[in-house]
């Protein structure tokens, strides 16, 4: 199909050059580098054993669940700094109704998702109505939500942590959607044929794949589909790239942005649901700084801070790098104090690389 759409001025550009035009390239290359680095430094430490892989994938998955919708929001030209506080708030919204008011877990979950989506949409509404930078509006939400979380929790429970969710959740119909593991059958089989190591007691070293990893992959695929294959995706690119042009052509820019703010808030609620049901408790400080980590993952993934360009797959690589580095530093025994230095440096390098890639893409005449 593509051959008859080109003309003779198109040379067959090399694969490398074509890849340079993709936003994910930097993150994919970075992922390979980071894996290679830790394969050398931490090869024997167990980082790349089945157990180690699941460990870093779980870290990546949590961040990746946030990063995919945050990527779409940033491509549409907006920030959401309230993601981290939203996680803490959502956790409390699940825990308090279940523990103190006797609601079933599934009802608390629905309540939490609905309220978070509404708050996200409100963030978006304020941004598009006032025309204020989303940075400022959501910075306000960051503090308001954290304060609300702390105030409500202490007011109702007298403490800053609510535990005891696990016992209530055991028989809940929605529990297995957010906690527990899947694919225990295939994992046992892989262990039997020797791919996955066994523990001393003869059981496989891992019992399955945590459900958060499935959410991560599913959400990334969904966001990628939405961005590249739907009308809404076209609007996302246009809303971030040239909002006035988009508006003049009849694209509902405001609606697009509000929807993405709500989606981001929903991702924060999903993050919280997984965290609360896996750990069995909620804490007012949960999710602190997650907004920045998500932005770092998205930026490493090749999305422009100015909007209009980027990908959800890139954000997935960004989250993967984040997880590998965090667990890699832990496994190699390097002082974990160095993690943040590394992370910040990664982001700056990624931004430099991305602006280079973009200027290349624009020059590819």
């Amino acid at each position, binding site marked *: 199909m593509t051959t008859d*759409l080109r003309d003779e001025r198109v040379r067959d550009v090399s694969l490398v050059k074509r890849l340079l035009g993709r936003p994910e390239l930097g993150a994919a290359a970075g992922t390979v580098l980071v894996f290679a680095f830790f394969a050398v430094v931490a090869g024997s430490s167990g980082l790349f054993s089945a157990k180690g892989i699941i460990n870093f994938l779980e870290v990546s998955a949590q961040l990746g669940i946030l990063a995919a919708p945050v990527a779409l929001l940033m491509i549409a030209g907006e920030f959401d700094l309230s993601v981290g506080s939203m996680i803490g708030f959502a956790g409390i919204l699940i825990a308090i109704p279940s523990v103190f008011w006797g609601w079933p877990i599934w009802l608390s979950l629905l309540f939490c998702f609905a309220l978070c989506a509404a708050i996200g949409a409100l963030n978006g509404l304020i941004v598009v109505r006032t025309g204020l930078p989303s940075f400022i509006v959501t910075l306000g939400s960051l503090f308001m939500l954290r304060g609300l979380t702390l105030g409500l929790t202490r007011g109702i429970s007298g403490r800053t942590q609510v535990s005891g969710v696990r016992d209530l959740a055991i028989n809940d119909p929605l529990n297995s959607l957010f906690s527990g593991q899947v694919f225990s059958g295939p994992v046992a089989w892989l262990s039997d044929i020797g791919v996955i190591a066994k523990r001393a007691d003869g059981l496989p070293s891992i019992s399955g794949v945590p459900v958060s990893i499935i959410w991560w992959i599913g959400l990334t695929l969904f966001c990628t589909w939405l961005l590249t294959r739907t009308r809404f995706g076209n609007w996302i690119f246009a809303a971030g790239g040239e909002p006035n042009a988009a508006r003049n052509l009849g694209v509902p820019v405001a609606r697009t942005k509000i929807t993405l703010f709500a989606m981001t808030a929903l991702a924060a609620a999903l993050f919280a649901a997984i965290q609360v049901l896996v750990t069995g408790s909620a804490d007012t400080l949960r999710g602190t700084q997650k907004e920045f980590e998500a932005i770092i993952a998205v930026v490493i993934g090749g999305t422009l801070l100015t909007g209009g360009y980027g990908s959800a797959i890139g954000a997935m690589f960004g989250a993967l790098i984040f997880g590998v580095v965090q667990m890699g530093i832990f496994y190699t025994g390097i002082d974990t104090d160095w993690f943040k230095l590394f992370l910040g440096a990664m982001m700056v390098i990624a931004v430099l690389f991305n602006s280079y890639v973009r200027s290349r893409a624009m020059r590819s005449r």
Partner: protein
Amino acid sequence: MTTPLVELRAVSKYFGSVIALKDVTFDLLPGEVHCLLGDNGAGKSTLIKTLSGVHVPDAGELLVGGRPARFASPKDTLDAGIATVYQDLALVPLMSVARNFFLGREPLKGIWPFQQFDIDQANRTAYRELKDMGIELRSPEQPVGTLSGGERQCLAIARAIHFGAKVLILDEPTSALGVHQASIVLKLIVQSKARGIGVIFISHNVHHAYVVGDRFTILKRGRSMGTQSKKDISRDQLLNLMAGGKELVDLEAEIARLQRAKAGA
């Protein structure tokens, strides 16, 4: 006699105490290029906005297809087949040609909720439409940012025609372009005319206008200086009618006087 596609009859438009347009009469026939000439501040923008439904005239009439019309929004105007291509072109540089071509009017395939943007069809249609108008793209997937200024202008015009424009209002389409780029756009204007589309070509460049224009209306300080057919007016006369002509002659005289004074000193 053919009914004009659009017509303004003695239209006036005021902004507070400012007279932006005064008793301007203007019409556009199918398959003609009607050039609207004038210096900055002559009222060209106000006239475009009146024709495209952004402004409602304070006096006079706007007729579309011979009938009085009143547009509630720019979208109404589009539905009536009047498309305006403004200087910012309404293009998103980082998006592909095909995505820009269909922005806001994406072709869909599949069943809800799995309805998708039919990218293959968008690519094919955009490529074919542009090729039909003589614009050869390397690929419909190249970003608009990689196109030249003339190609961008052509893309915006081709898009308007594809979505059913019968009247094209082009706001200074060649002003920012070099000679070669401008000629690409001028060729496309002639092609649109051959398809029976009426083109209102706004410019302050008499040379560009005279090449493609059939009739010329000159605006000066909000008033029309009359409409001339190409056969009745030469390029130089046109140039003189515009503010530029007389002022350039004055300027030449001034410079000559200064040089004489210098030589004498």
